């Protein structure tokens, strides 16, 4: 927390306080539709930050983060449904499974020096492998899906993550805020500097005594654990899991769009990106409806063009540009 405040100039602190206050009071101020959008943005910000720790800090481009999300979701859901073990305990299993998968990828990747684009393709391969594997796993429903019971009498059982949209909104808010604090603390720590050194130049980092393999594993583990925890959220929030949806390549792409558009490697980039892209999608839907254009695909078409435009115009993401304009720059200590 102190690291977070230290990283911001006075104006930034005020802006952050205002945003936090607005988000905390949002359920009182906005209707449920807007709240559902905010929830998606917060959750997107959370996952974006998890991915950003691996890519933005440590320079490892994972294009298969849906893997950890899906494993976390299935692990916690299976424990809950099959053995009656609640999500808090399930979260540990989810994290353990996510980290185990990360260990396998890391072992292959780092042991055999699979780097750059090859590492990215390795992550895709694992996610796809898991998708097909779960599609063919009858114990967890296979492709037909895995379902959590939704019982009215459990509605208030928050300890089992059984709650309404406001509960999940605050949960997403807490997770996003937690991820921000964690990212900031990490970034300011020795470990975080080791991440950055590896991202910038692994060989130079090694020569300065950084154990590159070990530190990369740590980054991968933290990122996978956070993402797997996100999977627990998804499982208990949506109550149904389908391998074709949760492990899909498009899910991995969704996770990484926000941090890249917002600014890879920055603390606030993933958050800014998520709070831009999610409402942007909704705004496009609305705008096209206003124009009376009821053509399926038109929205995605515009969205695709906008992605290309943004990434061409602001190479290092929107947040660094925005922060400069507004004087909210993260301080370089």
């Amino acid at each position: 927390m102190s690291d977070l405040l230290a990283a911001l100039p006075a104006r930034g602190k005020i802006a952050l306080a205002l945003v936090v206050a607005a988000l905390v009071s949002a359920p009182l101020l906005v209707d449920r539709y807007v709240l559902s959008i905010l929830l998606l943005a917060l959750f997107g910000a959370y996952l974006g930050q998890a991915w950003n720790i691996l890519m933005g800090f440590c320079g490892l481009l994972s294009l298969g983060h849906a893997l950890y999300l899906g494993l976390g979701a299935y692990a916690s859901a299976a424990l809950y449904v099959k053995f009656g073990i609640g999500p808090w305990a399930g979260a540990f299993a989810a994290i353990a499974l996510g980290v185990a998968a990360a260990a396998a990828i890391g072992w292959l990747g780092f042991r055999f020096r699979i780097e750059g684009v090859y590492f990215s393709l390795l992550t895709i391969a694992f996610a796809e492998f898991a998708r097909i594997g779960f599609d063919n796993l009858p114990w967890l429903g296979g492709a037909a899906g895995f379902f959590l019971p939704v019982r009215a009498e459990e509605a208030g059982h928050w300890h089992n993550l059984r709650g309404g949209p406001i509960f999940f909104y605050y949960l997403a808010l807490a997770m996003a805020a937690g991820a921000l604090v964690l990212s900031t603390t990490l970034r300011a720590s020795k470990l975080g500097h080791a991440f950055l050194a590896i991202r910038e130049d692994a060989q130079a980092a090694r020569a300065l005594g950084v154990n590159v393999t070990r530190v990369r594993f740590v980054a991968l583990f933290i990122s996978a654990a956070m993402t797997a925890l996100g999977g627990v959220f998804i499982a208990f929030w949506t109550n149904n899991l389908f391998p074709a949806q949760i492990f899909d390549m498009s899910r991995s792409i969704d996770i990484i769009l926000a941090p890249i558009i917002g600014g890879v490697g920055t603390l606030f980039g993933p958050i800014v990106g998520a709070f831009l892209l999610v409402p942007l999608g909704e705004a496009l839907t609305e705008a096209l409806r206003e124009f009376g254009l009821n053509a399926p695909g038109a929205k995605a078409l515009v969205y695709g063009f906008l992605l290309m435009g943004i990434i061409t115009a602001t190479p290092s993401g929107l947040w660094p540009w925005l922060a400069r304009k507004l004087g909210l720059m993260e301080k370089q200590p």
Partner: protein
Amino acid sequence: MAHRTGLIDRRSVLAGAGAAFASPAIVRAQEKTLKIAILLPRSGFFAQAGQSCHRGALASAKVLADLGYNVELTHVDTESNGDVARTQAEKAINDGAGAIVGAFESGHTLAIAQVCEQRKVPLVINVAAAPQITQQGYQYLVRNFPTGGMLVTNGLKLVNDVARAANVEFKTAAFLHANDTFGTAQRAAMDAIFPKLGMPFQLIESIAYDPKAQDLSVEVTKLRSINPDLLLIVTRAGDAIKLTRDMVRQKFEPKAIMSPGSPGLYDEEFFQAVGPYADYFIYNLPWANPKAQMTRALEASFKATSPKNRFDLDSFNAGFTFEALLVAADAFKRAGTTDGPTLMKAIKATNIADHVMIGGPIAFTDRGDNVNIASASVENLKQTPTVVFPADAAAAKPVLPMPSWQGRT
């Protein structure tokens, strides 16, 4: 705007009136129209099916108006994305939707179901087969669509009926299905139900194929080596084309190819793609009753709203989408209010005898399933889906065994 015609079932009106009088909940002003939001995956992965359902929704407006129902339909694209389905459901309810119809895909349907549950707005499911949907405990949903188990049970029974009617005997069968949500649910039902039904033939192999497969040639080669009398298939729209092409190329000719309920074999694109080879496929699934008055009304409207379509009706998708709207409209008429709990009570009390799909009256169990949905055997004859069983709805006799691929034009 609304014309009263003689089409409304008197019983349902009476039932509705009875419910209205019996219900003390109606205290608020009586709304004149019910806004229904129809959420369908019209772009993205499920676009083909979503747009097929959408054509049904477009055709429904006039039919419902003619039947004297005051409903206003809004059409929403879920983009084949569960998150979009959820937020758009919230949006639709914000914009005044008193009921929601959708959403073709089981995951999206459940995302919407959650919103509807929390906001006490009824969800009438047009298409979604996962049995769990009505087992998860949602109060504000009904499904006018068979579960995978119902489809398979009815479908397998019809296999026997049709075989007997055509005097054909099968000794062996193989089951080929897409390994997607629907296909796997069907497979699970098949594994559970087949042994219990005492079918006169043996199921020698079940083969799951990758729904992302670019072609099915190896799958067909495998089938050829098994050489069953009967091929049971559960495909998706495009797969049926690939499958047929490879079966013709490899001259694989079982006595019959039947589907115990799956999309693909009745879609216009299937006929377009394989032409005469589309004939003699038989699929046992719920179907619009060609002899029902309401079906004709829907067909007439369908022709006007989708003039490019070769068929009178997308009998499956359009039929179910219409019926879902009918359920909501009918309940509104009886309840006389858009108040969610009251409307839901009316929906649960639905009893519509005259409707589109073959089967008994539309009515729902406590869980919200309609167990009266029947399946018909439909055979592609002269490149047109034709009901061949049961006899009271049949437009032709079943052609079995399947004539050879060769010599078709």
